[in-house]
């Protein structure tokens, strides 16, 4: 967020952004709009946002959206390949899933400020709160994904030694089954807000996130396993990437005005870079299927593309919440379209 500097034609309030960064003009652009004719659609309270923008730090929450997707998709692919007796992908994907979900938990706890606060998440189960549902999902998935990876390599002492394999298998299957849910509930998590660029995409967001997770976990497979053994990862990566790019297009086409935040400012740059990396990664995965180096590079591109997509979606939401236009204009349009309204 750039600091606001008073410019010609600005409101006299063009002082610095409030020290806490919460209220204030989102950018010079929004103030410029005050020069427009005083139409209903263009009106606001001194360009102030109607909403209180999300307080979450991008690194924690967008980071979690990416890591959770990577973990869930990787657990699923690890379990599926092992169930079918395909060798090579299981272990690295399980390791990746455990690492990603471990980092996710760190990010989520950091967002709360104090580790002890996470326990409050488990006071109640509320289907009306995607975060409550997600906390319960993670409280089963997280330990399962971590156990599946740890029991794979760490021997158990004495009498427990014989239980290690069955336990590891059970953990791996559990993580594999819950994994896909971990990747898509986060789409509901962001869409279930008043943020125009998030709620406006509630129909497509779970598909966008599922595709992005497939792309990332397939990418992890391509990065860590020789191409001869990475065919399942390649298929998942390509299908996921195509789904991600398609869902994003559909989402933007249906969203109306707030969709433009996905093309503007920092969100626009993030989304553009994400698209470039995802397309490059997909192409590389197909064209470079015989080369270890090309496959690994493609996998890295897909991972980076998926991460940037989540940061881009996060940032578009913030931008759409900070400009009152994205809240007011779609609501005005809804009112105008209602039967009985003067302009309907």
């Amino acid at each position, binding site marked *: 967020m750039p600091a606001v500097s008073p410019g010609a034609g600005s*409101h*006299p*309030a063009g*002082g610095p952004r*409030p*020290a*806490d960064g*919460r209220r*204030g003009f989102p950018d010079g652009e929004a103030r410029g709009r*005050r*020069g427009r*004719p*005083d139409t209903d659609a263009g*009106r*606001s*309270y*001194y360009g102030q*946002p*109607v909403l*209180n923008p*999300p*307080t979450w730090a991008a690194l924690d929450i967008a980071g979690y959206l990416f890591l959770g997707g990577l973990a869930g998709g990787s657990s*699923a*692919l690890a379990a599926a390949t092992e169930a079918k007796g395909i060798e090579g992908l299981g272990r690295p994907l399980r390791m990746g899933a455990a690492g990603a979900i471990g980092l996710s938990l760190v990010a989520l706890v950091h*967002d*709360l*400020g104090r580790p002890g606060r996470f326990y*409050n*998440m488990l006071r*109640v189960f*509320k*289907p*009306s*709160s*995607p*975060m*409550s549902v997600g906390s319960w999902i993670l409280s089963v998935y997280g330990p399962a994904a971590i156990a599946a990876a740890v029991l794979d390599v760490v021997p158990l002492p004495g009498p427990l030694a014989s239980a290690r394999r069955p336990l590891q298998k059970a953990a791996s299957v559990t993580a594999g089954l819950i994994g896909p*849910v971990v*990747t898509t*509930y986060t789409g*509901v998590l962001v*869409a*279930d807000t*008043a*943020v125009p660029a*998030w*709620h406006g995409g509630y*129909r497509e*967001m*779970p*598909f966008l*996130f599922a595709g992005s997770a*497939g792309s990332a976990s397939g990418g992890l497979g391509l990065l860590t396993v020789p191409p001869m053994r990475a065919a*399942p990862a390649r298929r*998942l990566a390509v*299908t996921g990437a195509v789904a991600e790019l398609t869902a994003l297009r559909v989402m933007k086409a249906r969203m109306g005005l707030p969709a433009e935040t996905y093309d503007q400012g920092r969100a626009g740059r993030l989304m553009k870079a994400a698209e470039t990396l995802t397309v490059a990664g997909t192409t590389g995965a197909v064209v470079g299927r015989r080369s270890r180096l090309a496959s690994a590079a493609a996998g890295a591109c897909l991972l980076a593309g998926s991460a940037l997509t989540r940061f881009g979606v996060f940032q578009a939401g913030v931008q759409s919440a900070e400009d*009152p236009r994205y809240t*007011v204009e779609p*609501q*005005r349009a809804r009112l105008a379209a209602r039967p009985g309204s003067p302009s309907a």
Partner: protein
Amino acid sequence: MVATDAGWADSGPRMGFFTDTSVCIGCKACEVACKEWNHVPDDGLRFSGFSYDNSWGLGADTWRHVAFIEQRHPAPGAGDGLPAGDGLPAAGGELRWLMSSDVCKHCTRAACLDVCPTGALFRTEFGTVVVQSDVCNGCGYCVPACPYGVIDQRKEDGRVWKCTLCYDRLKVGMEPACAKACPTRSIQFGELDVLRAEAADRVEVLHRRGVAGARLYGDDPGDGVGGTGAFFLLLDEPEVYGLPPEPVVTTRDLPSMWKRAAVAALALAATVVAAAR
């Protein structure tokens, strides 16, 4: 009954605010009374330049906020340019000053309460929505969920805060501090049904006197949040006061979202199984 729906066996009538902005004089007694009674910390001394408003908007440390709008009235139609500087049309109409004391709406269908994962936000026996600060874990989910931009996070402790409609005062039969301090009865506290009837009468009186722009905001139980427990009489469009013109509780679409998330998860699982060959 919103309190009964929330599980209260013997709740009384739903209580709320009617803020009649046509008699607000912008004295900010409500802001001060709220701060004093609720021990709300300093919200910063930041010059805004928004007329006489330096408290910017509702937030963790501003539970009542008096908006000041300077405008020419009747506002000229579209096509009359605004000068970029002061926000006033260059010519036409008389100068008028709108003042309005904003507050948490205590929605019938409250998004903040719905999305709270800890149960910190709850519905009181008065039908109001209150945060239990000893349960709130600072997840911040309610902040972007609120369609009005009311609830917010206090940076110092990470938890969220907002108007409680003076739950402690209501418990002992007192009216909220802001309503008590309001010298013009712009802020009226009482049983919501009674307030709604009085407000409808008030709009009629204003219309008869030629105040054509007078309208109620949040009084309709059929709106996107099921009507609000704190509603307003405004003299211009809601967005002029920084209010959303047609807010909808985000959880209205949640059943559809869960279905789509389930379908997307199944599609991903199917793709994974198909890929593993």
